[in-house]
């Protein structure tokens, strides 16, 4: 088949399929969210977004139910039990933010065998029968170094604040940062601490390592740790380097204050907690019979010097900069993977 014919054929298919796809076969379907943790601002925003978007979808008759379940403790064994309970409760699809990429595979397999659609996002699962909406965390790490390379071509010493040890997200962002440094050898990572994605932990860790470090040009982070790092530098009376932020409200606010006071420049990058709503629409599309690739990629949310104010305004106090996804966004992401 020539490309022209293929194009024509796909246009024809789109024309035929489009009118049917409006809240079609999923009106009686039930979708559940299985979440492993709700103890930080990112997860709270994620649950709020889910609640907002799915409530609308349920009242519009797109799906019959979309309930959120969070385990009491952030443990894989507990989430596996929760998934098995959801199977018993007769849901048609489960959207998962997983405590572990592998430890839930047994339970996910049980769900697939019971005929359920399983969509994982953010914390994804490796079981082949499930769909994955992954963030390219590696690219997120690399983009920090790329930004710094543009801002300070002469390079310099970097301090890396990492996340929670033993978690795959931490590994991937770290790998991205390392790849970036290899490409830009003018930068050198002179120190690395674990900030556990929490401002207080990051502040303590950075304060602990600072006395042993030479002059730091920039701090690369993973999100939820930039404000703590800034506080540690300020407390040690050291010049504040360029600290890459992670979209948290306290970080953006601090950035804004510095920007107003002395023209401080940086960037901020993280994933939008609203990715849960993207996963919801993807699950709905799969239930609707759409052909969806097993691996989808969601773009990360980046804030720069010029759109800082606009983003800060939209961000709730103590929250995270957020985007909620619509059915059209989901279809775009699905289409992009085809």
């Amino acid at each position: 088949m020539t490309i022209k014919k293929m194009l024509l054929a796909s246009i024809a298919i789109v024309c035929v399929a489009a009118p049917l796809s409006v809240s079609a076969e999923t009106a009686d379907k039930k979708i559940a969210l299985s979440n492993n943790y709700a103890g930080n601002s990112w997860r709270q925003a994620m649950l709020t977004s889910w609640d907002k978007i799915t409530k609308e979808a349920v009242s519009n008759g797109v799906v019959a139910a979309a309930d959120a379940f969070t385990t009491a403790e952030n443990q894989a064994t507990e989430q596996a039990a929760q998934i098995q309970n959801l199977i018993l409760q007769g849901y048609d699809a489960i959207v998962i933010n997983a405590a572990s990429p592998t430890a839930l595979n047994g339970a996910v397999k049980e769900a697939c065998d019971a005929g359920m659609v399983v969509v994982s996002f953010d914390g994804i699962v490796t079981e082949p029968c499930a769909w994955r909406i992954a963030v390219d965390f590696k690219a997120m790490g690399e983009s920090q170094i790329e930004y710094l390379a543009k801002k300070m071509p002469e390079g310099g010493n970097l301090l890396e604040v990492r996340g929670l040890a033993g978690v795959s997200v931490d590994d991937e962002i770290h790998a991205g940062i390392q790849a970036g440094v290899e490409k830009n050898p003018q930068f050198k990572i002179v120190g690395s601490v674990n900030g556990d994605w929490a401002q207080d932990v990051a502040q303590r860790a950075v304060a602990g390592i600072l006395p042993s470090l030479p002059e730091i040009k920039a701090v690369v982070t993973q999100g939820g740790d930039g404000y703590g790092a800034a506080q540690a530098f300020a407390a040690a009376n050291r010049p504040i380097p360029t600290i890459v932020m992670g979209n948290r409200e306290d970080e953006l606010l601090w950035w804004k204050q510095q920007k107003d006071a002395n023209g401080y420049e940086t960037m901020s990058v993280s994933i939008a907690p609203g990715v849960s709503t993207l996963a919801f629409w993807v699950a709905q599309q799969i239930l609707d019979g759409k052909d969806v690739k097993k691996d989808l990629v969601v773009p990360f949310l980046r804030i720069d010097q010029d759109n800082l104010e606009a983003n800060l305004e939209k961000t709730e106090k103590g929250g995270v900069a957020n985007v909620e996804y619509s059915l059209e966004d989901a279809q775009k992401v699905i289409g992009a993977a085809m």
Partner: protein
Amino acid sequence: MRLSSGTIRMIIPAASLAVLLVAVFYMQPRAMSYTGLNLLFNLAVPIALATIAQMLIMAVNDLDLSMGTFVSFTACVTATFLQSSPALGVLILLGAVAAYALMGIVIYVRQLPSIVVTLGMSFVWGGLAVLMLPSPGGEAPGWARWLMTSKPPYVPMAIVASIVIAVLTHLLVMRSSFGVLIRGVGGNARSVERAGWSVVGVRAAAYGLAGFFGVLSGIALVGLTTAADANIALRYTLLSIAGVILGGGEFVGGRISPIGAVIGALTLTLAGSFLSFMRISPDWQIGAQGAILIVVLALRLLLNRLEKRENNR
């Protein structure tokens, strides 16, 4: 006919399990089937094994705070070495059991508090697990996966496994002379010593056996999950202690019940499902789980009073 307090001690755990089960069946009739029961209980099997391990430590008046990390460690060994080079894997697991026996000896000989030693060991096990699996992964050995997902006729695997564990450990701890010795050391170590037994040997054996059940728990867990993670079983420390207590065991005095411990583990697992079916918000779930524990323990307190009155008579 008046029931003796001993019988009541056995009945309370079984009755609480039955009540919960009826409540779950009422709320979710789908659970009343072969697959339903398996889904409800299969994750209770590794917890039951960890509870038995904890019970053996508690039988000699000690407490193991490293149970969760130890099971995580054995799960990591199972998903890596035991899968790729079985001989080496078996060797490591045997080493782990030996380390447990050694721990029992050190605690006794140096008169150290078991809580401190096991808490320290929990960091060792956790560290080793992260070294083996820095990021989650590995693969379950085929036989472990087969065993945990096999479908025996009529009765689901989870129930069969629980009954086998309960019966075997009951025979071992309640009916064998070795079991009498372990419980004797917990009840009155001096009289066991005077009778010519080596307390240190018995304690080493009890710890070693606990290590062995911890290993079994890790293997069973990986058989269910298909892969491991260095933090996979951290909750088992508290679950195993709660399971023993729920099942009628005591912290001191060598008073333990293997059948009760298995029932306790099943009850704890079921309590989680029950709360989830009730749609209790996660903020309240830990509290509700605690409330269930307190109710059962309150019943126990009542029982102890009853016993005292019986003894005074």
